[in-house]
């Protein structure tokens, strides 16, 4: 394996008595699209700002291209940040905003102009080059902010909640756009987001942060299919949880039924078993991993149908996702009794 582009080693940062970053280790590779995912207060933004140079770590190292940059000021790092508020200079036109960073590098005027023109093409805003930021729509501003950071061709581009201010539809379009641009430029992107769906759609790898610590990192698929903690399982996608007790190697749910899993519950008597809604199938198999209950609600989502099942096995309603054709073959109504089952390989168990 080649040397990682960026290595974060045992980094810590306190604000007063608050441990914003509590010892994080992470490797990020050349040309990766990496997502830092977490709720507010998880430390993701602090970590990002540390990479940009706006926060200095109290302890640990930030190594970029083999050099420790953790004490280098932001204006001397080959790293650029796209701000959550975009932070466009309100007094400058789109073109001047984009040229600003290149002017700081004291590049020849002709080169600045050609690079600005080129990036304006990429973000499809050439016709608005002379507009001021307050004359642009939210989506256009977002693209200018991206271009302004990208035009410097940084080793690492940091994006702080880049799509947070956009409406839902635009967000979907921009997710694909960002991926296209990242591909085209071959620059490593690190994005901070609290939106798990966004992270799954865009990133090659995702790191989940909680209370200043790294919970888990991996590809979206790894994290979705093999969450290592209850928090990760709950945070990414939708998950059904069944409280279980372990008796002589068997997991027993609250309603007395037996749950089986490929991985056992380690060294604890109590835990939760977790199953994704799309892994539940209608019908009993008269054996393990079978839950019965009453349908309490049905939500229609176009492609699929989400059925809420009230069952003694779980304090919360169990969510079942049925594709439209399955639902059509066996119509279900609120109040019906229903049994569902799943395979042992789809059970995840966590200690509590």
């Amino acid at each position, binding site marked *: 394996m080649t040397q990682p582009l960026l290595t974060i080693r045992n980094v810590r940062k306190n*604000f*007063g008595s*608050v441990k*914003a970053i509590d010892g994080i280790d992470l490797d990020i590779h050349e040309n990766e699209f990496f997502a830092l995912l977490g709720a*507010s*207060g998880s*430390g993701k*933004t*602090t970590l990002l*700002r540390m990479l940009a140079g*706006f*926060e200095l770590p109290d302890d640990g190292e930030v190594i970029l291209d083999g050099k420790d940059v953790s004490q280098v000021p932001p204006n001397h790092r080959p790293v650029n940040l796209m701000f959550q508020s975009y932070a466009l200079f309100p007094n400058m036109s789109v073109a001047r905003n984009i040229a600003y960073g290149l002017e700081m590098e004291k590049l020849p005027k002709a080169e600045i102009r050609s690079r600005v023109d080129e990036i304006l093409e990429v973000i499809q805003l050439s016709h608005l080059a002379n507009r001021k930021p307050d004359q642009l729509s939210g989506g256009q501003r977002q693209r200018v902010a991206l271009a302004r950071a990208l035009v410097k061709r940084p080793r690492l581009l940091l994006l702080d909640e880049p799509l947070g201010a956009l409406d839902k539809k635009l967000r979907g379009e921009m997710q694909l756009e960002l991926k296209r641009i990242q591909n085209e430029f071959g620059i490593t992107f690190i994005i901070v987001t609290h939106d798990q769906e966004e992270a799954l759609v865009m990133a090659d790898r995702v790191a989940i942060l909680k209370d200043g610590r790294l919970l888990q990192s991996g590809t979206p698929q790894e994290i979705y299919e093999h969450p290592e903690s209850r928090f990760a399982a709950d945070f990414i996608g939708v998950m059904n949880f069944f409280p279980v007790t372990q008796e002589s190697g068997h997991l027993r749910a609250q309603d007395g039924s037996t749950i089986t899993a490929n991985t056992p519950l380690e060294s604890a008597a109590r835990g939760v078993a977790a199953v994704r809604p799309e892994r539940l199938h209608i019908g009993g198999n008269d054996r393990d991993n079978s839950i019965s209950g009453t349908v309490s609600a049905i939500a229609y989502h176009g492609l699929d149908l989400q059925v809420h099942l009230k069952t003694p096995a779980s304090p919360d309603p169990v969510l079942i996702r049925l594709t439209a054709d399955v639902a059509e073959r066996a119509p279900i109504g609120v109040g019906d009794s229903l049994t569902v089952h799943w395979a042992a390989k789809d059970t995840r168990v966590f200690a509590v």
Partner: protein
Amino acid sequence: MHWRIAPQIQARRMIDRKPLYLMTPALAWLTAFMVAPCLMILALAFFQRGIYGGIDYTFTLENIALVFDPLYANIFLKSAFIAGLSATIAVVIGYAAAFAITAAPAKRQAMLLFFAVLPFWSNYLVRTYAWIVMLNREGLIAGAAQWLGYDGELPKMLYTETAVVIGLVYNYLPFVILACYAPLSRLNPEIAEASRDLGGNGWTTFRRVILPMTVPGIATGFVFVFVLSIGNFVTPALLGGGQFQMIGNLVYAQFLTANDWPFGAALSMFLIAIMMGLLTLQTYASERASGARREE
């Protein structure tokens, strides 16, 4: 939460890690030419007046006591009466005007407000002088009465208390309109509609819902007019024609004619005390009103 506000503060502090340096010149100026003189006045109030004017640096409470002398206490009461009357009238007219402006179509409100405030931007003396022209015996009102065929004796208008009140109301009305417009325009129109929907008629809606929520504006307007009126000496001097004295004129006289600075200082102390008391009341009123809003 601590770590979420940190970035903004960090950004500000990057400009200058010691913002005190930026503030020093201005703060030094204010200390030298405002704080020090005001403290001096405070001290002055407790010294004796020298025999030939000037100051005798002996501690005394005479000046403070003199403020409560019936002669001066009456002037205080009279000033407070004139100021209170002016403030009340200004608030009634100003509130009505602000209400009428908020009832206008949204796109016309900015223009109406602009023209309501415009006179406030012009010279105070000139605005006061305009009323001399209006109220004069050969002035516009007299002329208009004559033109309308009234040839009896008109009551004296200029150099009366009424003239002073008119002048004060006129000068400070734009501010009151502004102060009342602010909370009125922030009101959610749906609140008035909700009250109507629940069966309140227009007047009830106004009295029970809109008025209580706009108390801060009324309080600000009232306090502003009252404070500026009670210490005013220009308007009484010009429109009252020196016929009667207000505190402002009294202070003026102590410093420029009677030459009793310690007493003048004591008088201004009371002026400040009244002002601070009213400002506290006003803050209290706004806090109560915003508390009421939160409860709703």
